[in-house]
């Protein structure tokens, strides 16, 4: 039996007998253990410190309300662990259900924002593009990366509009083949 278990159990027994100071000390010590427990468990599911603190409070409240269900003949740690784990499972169930409550949005929302991931990957494509013939490079860079229209790309690259379309089509096929070759082991 560890010292922590013995100290906590002594506090719990005093608290069951109505000792307010022991009760306060018990809840303070347990809340620190609970905080560490919930933070480590929630970090694995990608949730933060605020949720962990909510859970600490729920568990502290349950320990306070249910302290009569602790049987002094038994060690305290498994009793606390059972309450803490029950609250954790309850929380994970609740929040999993609420994942279905995604707010209604428009199809445009998916493209409304861009972030640096797109920008980073375009650098890679520009490097690959350098392996293509010049006219394909120019057409793809103008239309796919710089967002120009076919007519503007035709002017910039000095080609006809159908020439731009054909260059893009063939260039993308070649690019796909290049990427496939690069990702092969």
């Amino acid at each position, binding site marked *: 039996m560890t010292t922590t278990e013995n100290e906590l159990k002594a506090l719990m027994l005093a608290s069951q007998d109505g000792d307010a100071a022991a009760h306060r000390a018990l809840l303070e010590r347990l809340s620190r253990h609970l905080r560490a427990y919930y933070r480590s468990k929630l970090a694995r599911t990608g949730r933060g410190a605020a949720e962990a603190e909510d859970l600490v409070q729920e568990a502290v409240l349950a320990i306070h309300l249910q302290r009569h*269900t602790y049987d002094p003949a038994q060690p305290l740690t498994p009793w606390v662990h059972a309450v803490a784990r029950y609250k954790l499972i309850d929380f994970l169930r609740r929040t999993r259900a609420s994942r279905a409550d995604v707010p209604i949005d428009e199809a445009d929302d998916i493209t409304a924002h861009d972030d640096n991931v797109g920008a980073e990957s375009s650098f890679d494509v520009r490097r690959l593009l350098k392996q293509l013939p010049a006219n394909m490079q120019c057409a793809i860079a103008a239309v796919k990366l710089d967002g120009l229209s076919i007519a503007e790309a035709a002017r910039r690259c000095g080609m006809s509009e159908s020439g731009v379309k054909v260059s893009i089509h063939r260039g993308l096929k070649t690019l796909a083949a290049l990427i496939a070759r690069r990702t092969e082991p």
Partner: protein
Amino acid sequence: MKTDELITALSMSVEPVDRRLVNRSVGIALAIGTVVALGLVLTGLGVRADLSTPRAVTFLFLKLAFALGTVGAASVYLTRLARPGGERRISLGLAAIPFAAIMLLAAVSLGQAPSAHWDKMVMGNEWLECLLSIPIIAIVPFAVVIWAVRKAAPTNLVRAGAFSGLVAGGVSAVAYAFHCTDDSLPFVALWYGGTRLCCARSPARYWDRGCCVGE
């Protein structure tokens, strides 16, 4: 609210708690359930008429011993399951001993009897009545026992539900034994034992997670 503030608020007035409350609630629930079940059987079905014969008395006591044995073991475990972490401290094997014992006795008695009698010994006269009566009589005891367990803080609801069903089924079997006139060990093993296990199985599946620690 900060956790420190919550702890301060909770430590304002700390009352001594009653550590025996869980056991007492389950005990009271058992007593209420037994009274209701006995009342139902005595008024609704009536005590078996042939209680003056020694054979009837022997079998009544045998059925009572089997039923009370399972109620005893299951209710000790139920008072543990009603507390957080109690599922660590139960062994399903020990709760199964009365069932194993009655199955063994039934097998021995079947082995001694000529096989032409087996059908009669296993099915009895009233197997359908037994099959229906025990779960129906168990409804009220089950509700009362569940009420007592939910007042505590079970953390393994499936097991707590199963043992509540087992206890309620046992109480019901105790009461039904006063009415049942089928006196053969295989009958008791199959129809008493089987319906009891059904009583334990179904609530375990349907007891939802509506019951929470700290509610």
